[in-house]
């Protein structure tokens, strides 16, 4: 079974002191899908992503990526296996340019000082990376600002920079934590349709965390709904939206 899924969490629990932010959560992201994770504020969505990517250590449970147990791995090992994520609150490299921010998401041999000194050994790769970075930047509408330091960007632009960085990393699975928060609907639709096209083009998978279900739902293949640290329901978007529990969470409160 597990080969159909790129990411599987098995009863993952994460506590902060007395608060159980993620409570025995089991989800599975099928390969080559956009799987959505929705739920109200404080449901534990970001915490789950942090646990999956090694930023936080799980208190209980296992995380499997591409059939490998990654529960104990540090984030950089998880990146190496092909799993990256964006940050809900953007964490840009403030003093680096927009272009450099995207370049920093791709590794280069020239990061070893012994190789760095011999430009000929990394220049080809660098040019390729720059091409790829510009490509991503133009998709998210930031290419014009390529030489601005990131601290000069506005909130929505920083969101897009997060997305560009993650997409450029060329991962097998990309977790997007509210990538379109604060972005206008027309743009948000463009971004999400681009995500879908990337999924097809590169056989990538996405875990999409989103509040704005009106915009995001049409782009999802499968949906998990989370509330108070637990998965409340899951299914196809059309089914989930009719589920009374979901209606209660989103409308009834």
């Amino acid at each position, binding site marked *: 079974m597990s080969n159909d899924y790129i990411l599987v969490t098995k009863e993952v629990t994460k506590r902060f002191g007395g608060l159980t932010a993620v409570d025995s959560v089991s989800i599975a992201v099928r390969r080559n899908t956009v799987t959505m994770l929705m739920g109200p504020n404080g449901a534990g969505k970001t915490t789950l992503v942090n646990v999956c990517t090694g*930023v936080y250590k799980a208190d209980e449970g296992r995380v499997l990526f591409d059939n490998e147990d990654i529960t104990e791995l540090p984030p950089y090992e998880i990146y190496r296996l092909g799993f990256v994520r964006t*940050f809900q609150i953007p964490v840009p*490299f403030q003093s680096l340019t927009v272009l450099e*921010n995207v370049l920093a998401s791709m590794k280069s041999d*020239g*990061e070893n000082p012994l190789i760095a000194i011999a430009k000929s050994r990394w220049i080809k790769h*660098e040019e390729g990376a*720059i091409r790829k970075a510009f490509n991503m930047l133009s998709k998210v*509408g930031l290419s014009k600002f390529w030489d601005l330091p990131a601290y000069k960007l506005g909130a929505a632009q920083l969101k897009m920079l997060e997305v560009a960085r993650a997409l450029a990393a060329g991962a097998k699975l990309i977790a997007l934590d509210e990538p379109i928060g604060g972005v206008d609907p027309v743009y948000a639709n463009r971004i999400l*349709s681009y995500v879908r096209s990337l999924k097809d083009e590169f056989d990538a998978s996405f875990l999409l965390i989103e509040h704005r279900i009106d915009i995001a739902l049409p782009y999802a293949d499968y949906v998990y709904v989370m509330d108070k640290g637990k998965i409340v329901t899951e299914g196809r978007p059309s089914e989930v939206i009719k589920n009374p529990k979901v209606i209660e969470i989103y409308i009834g409160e």
Partner: protein
Amino acid sequence: MEVIPPIVLYILVDFSVYLIITLSLNMEAGYAGLPQFGRVLSVITGALVAGAIPGRILALLYGYPHGAEYASYEFNYRIVNELNIILEQSPLLSIGVFLLTLIMAMMLGAAVGYVTSRPAIRLKEAYLGITLLAMGDVVMLISLYYSPIIGGTTGVMVPDPFRWVGPYRFTAATLVLLTLSIVVLIVVERLTKSPFGRALRAMRDSEVAITVYGRDIARLRTYALIVGASIAALGGALYTFYTGGCIASTYTRLTWTFWPWAFMMLGGTGNNVGVVLGVLLFVIVKTFIVTYRGVLAPYVPFDPVWLEYTFVGMAIILIAMFRPQGIIPERPIFTIARKKIERIFTTLETPEEIRA
């Protein structure tokens, strides 16, 4: 007899040595964001190599005492005087000893950098800063009170690889130091204008983001500390050769850690060209204070020996208060020429606009 006035030589030597050391500090503190408060450690490592090793190698080759007695004040000046006579006759031997020592200093510096990187993997900010600072002091104190290495409180003389040049010895040595400092500047510029430099700055800006994007920060810190320490050790070795003597008490954290910090902060943290400017300005002002402090003595209410320390201390406070980014602030760095990047940009832009 020198062609260049002594005060200019003095400025050039200080400039060269401090440029090398401040550039190494800038890589670690300015680029990688490490609290390198133990710069003196790798500087003294280089000085120890130059003070303890070339003389002993020559002593061994020419049949003089080369063990602990080499460093004893009764023998040392006699042995080194003899060795200097030999070196004076042989430019080739002089150059060989000089280069070999520099290479050894850089290698031992790298090893020391590696050792300091072990705590640097686990510790953060202030804790790491204090650890590095303490390591520097420990090595200085050991060299000062354990005389078999470099003669303890009396120090040692160092064989002079420039003596064969003749009457222009100091001018020649100064020019060699200046040339090497420019080579270091070029190397450091290359290193920092590369994916390596970018990764260091990215780590400095956000450790969590660079980790999520695949970098092991322990490894990046180790790289920065090894490269930085080996460059700083080169500076220490060069200074020792220039002065012709080596005494541990020269290597205080004030002059070889905090001054380089002041130079870097003045010029521009994270900007190598700024560092050049910062070092130059400070060294010039410092030299004039030292030269003319006798003249100033009647006008200051304390011993004028303290003038240069007061000046550097004041400067650090003023920079931190009014211009923390330095004279030339950090600028975006282009790993390849901006024009080339723009060319890549224009070839891609139009056809690839957002697919609806």
